[in-house]
């Protein structure tokens, strides 16, 4: 466990416990406490990472391996956007408002635990906490779609935990320990790797199921579509990424995919990644529901991260980490925009919407920024991460994968353009008449995230320096 970042786990937990008592008589206290906790944490993290002296020194003094710090910042950022959005989104009568914020804070704490731990079993424990909070969050609004999404998520991802546990048992038996460091040292040595690789493969398979990579993606669209609107941004933006994809990237670095000791596993992972990209993008083309289309797009983007993690060279890992962060920013924007649309028009069905550009200009423009970033249009941040991934593939001689990744990037642009045309441009439909732009507080998180997308794209050299430090530390 990374001691320096422990406070980022404990303070949200403490706050989550305090909220039900503080909000007993004044429900608004719950909003305020949750927002203040996350804002304070984020400010503290930014001070840690973005001090002028730190930037001038090329981020050489970052504590820990740098990756945890970056991901904790992403968790806090998305968490803050979601709580701030929820504070103005939730209707007055929602009876379990304090419980909702407590669960959000516990899930932030659990994600912090996931990214700061250095041991497989602790990783598993925190991931289960995260999963349990997600089920309750999905069903917040008591809708039948929500409960259906939650049940599918429950029954399709928990069997994966068993694979992880069996993997952990074999790892304990053959490695004698469960810490990341021991696995890294073992893989760097010349000992025969058979059983340890098998155990890691089981653990990785479990995380592949949990992250919704293609043969195991059936729960993803239902959970995202059925979830309570701000929660789907939380889920798609960060929860499933931390609970599945992060562990895959971590394992890819620990198993040293780049020096070919787990060749078969690496190739399987790359194949599944490519399959996800293709299936997600093609399925997204024919969706009519905005949130469901975003869910399939999410599967496709996860594919890029998994593909890069499977390659495992330092450049590819940099691309994967960068794309993870980018995915958190642009998916949060898109899902929060879908929540805004739902609030003002009452539907997310793309056939019923149209001509929203004039009545909801802010929502429309932030969506354009986010979707261009997803599709990888320069100079937005998504362009750089996809460029890194494709370059890494090309450099390793995997020309076919590189070309396919590029092609499906164009498909991404195509389905998002179709979405934009249907929902925001074109003629007004009956459902879109007399629609007002949502209030400014609901727009603030979206505008903030869009600004971050543009800023990350324009200030790419600084971010590249940071990710380079991370890649050097976690691989070497």
């Amino acid at each position, binding site marked *: 466990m990374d001691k320096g970042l422990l406070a980022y*786990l404990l303070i949200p937990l403490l706050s989550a416990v305090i909220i039900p008592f503080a909000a007993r008589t004044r429900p608004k206290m719950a909003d305020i406490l949750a927002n203040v906790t996350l804002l304070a944490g984020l400010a503290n993290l930014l001070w840690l990472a973005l001090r002028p002296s730190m930037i001038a020194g090329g981020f050489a003094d970052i504590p820990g391996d740098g990756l945890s710090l970056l991901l904790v910042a992403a968790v806090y950022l998305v968490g803050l956007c979601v709580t701030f959005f929820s504070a103005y989104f939730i209707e007055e009568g929602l009876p*379990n408002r304090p*419980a909702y914020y407590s669960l959000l804070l*516990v899930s932030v704490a659990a994600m912090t635990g996931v990214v700061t731990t250095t*041991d497989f079993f*602790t990783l598993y424990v925190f991931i*289960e906490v995260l999963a349990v909070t997600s089920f309750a969050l999905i069903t917040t609004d008591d809708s039948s779609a929500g409960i259906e999404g939650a049940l599918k998520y429950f029954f399709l991802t928990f069997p994966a935990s068993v694979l992880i546990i069996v993997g952990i048992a074999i790892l304990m038996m053959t*490695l004698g320990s469960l810490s990341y460091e021991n696995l890294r040292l073992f893989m760097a040595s010349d000992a025969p790797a058979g*059983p340890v690789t098998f155990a890691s493969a089981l653990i990785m398979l479990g995380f592949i199921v949990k992250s919704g990579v293609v043969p195991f993606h059936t729960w993803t669209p239902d959970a995202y579509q059925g979830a309570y609107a701000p929660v789907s941004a939380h889920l798609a933006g960060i929860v499933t990424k931390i609970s599945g994809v992060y562990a895959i990237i971590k394992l890819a670095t620990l198993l040293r995919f780049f020096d070919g000791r787990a060749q078969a596993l690496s190739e399987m992972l790359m194949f599944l990644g490519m399959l996800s990209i293709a299936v997600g993008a093609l399925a997204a083309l024919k969706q009519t529901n905005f949130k469901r289309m975003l869910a399939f797009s999410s599967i496709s983007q996860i594919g890029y991260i998994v593909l890069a993690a499977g390659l495992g060279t330092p450049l590819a890992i940099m691309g994967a980490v960068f794309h993870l962060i980018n995915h958190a920013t642009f998916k949060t924007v898109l899902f929060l925009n879908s929540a805004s649309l739902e609030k003002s028009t009452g539907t997310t069905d793309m056939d019923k919407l149209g001509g929203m550009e004039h009545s909801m200009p802010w929502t429309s423009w932030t969506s354009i920024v986010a979707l261009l970033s997803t599709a990888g249009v320069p100079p937005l941040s998504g362009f750089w991460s996809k460029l890194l991934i494709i370059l890494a593939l090309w450099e390793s001689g995997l020309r076919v994968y590189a070309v396919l990744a590029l092609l499906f990037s164009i498909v991404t642009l195509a389905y998002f353009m179709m979405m934009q045309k249907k929902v925001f441009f074109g003629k007004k439909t009956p459902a879109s008449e007399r629609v007002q732009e949502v209030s400014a507080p609901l727009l603030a998180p979206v505008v903030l995230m869009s600004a971050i997308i543009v800023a990350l794209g324009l200030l790419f050299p600084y971010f590249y320096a940071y990710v380079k430090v991370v890649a050097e530390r976690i691989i070497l």
Partner: protein
Amino acid sequence: MIYHTLLFALAAVFALWAVMARKLLVSAIMLALVSVCVSLIFFDFGAPWAGVFELSVCAGLITVLFVGAVSLIRAEDEKRPENRARFYALPFAAAIFAIAAWFYLPAFVEELAAGAKIGSGGGSIGRALWGMRRPDLLGQVLMLAAGVFVIKSVFPRRTQSK
């Protein structure tokens, strides 16, 4: 040795029974018996702490939760019984799996076991939990907090409007 293997076999039989039982209540009770077998296996391995936890929590608490939930939905469940054919096929499927696994699995597991790294095995359970697995204790606290909030959120206090 005989006792040890018998416990494993009993656990398998009870598991089969729990799946095959027509009534959900019987299933829940058979699940409790699986738990009891598992906890006896823990004792047999010389792991009394895990055994006690398993017996009190899994065989006790979880069974109570299951019986409560089953009694709530039983009337509805009996109105629309499931298609039983798939469950009657289970013993055959399990037998086919057992025979197929007999040829491959033990050899594979022996290969895994050959790579085992023998640990020191010293220390006490309290020291192991506190000294080596302290982050897990934090995880447990977080898990219990999550459980409380989940229950609070899924079953809100009845408001006046309802």
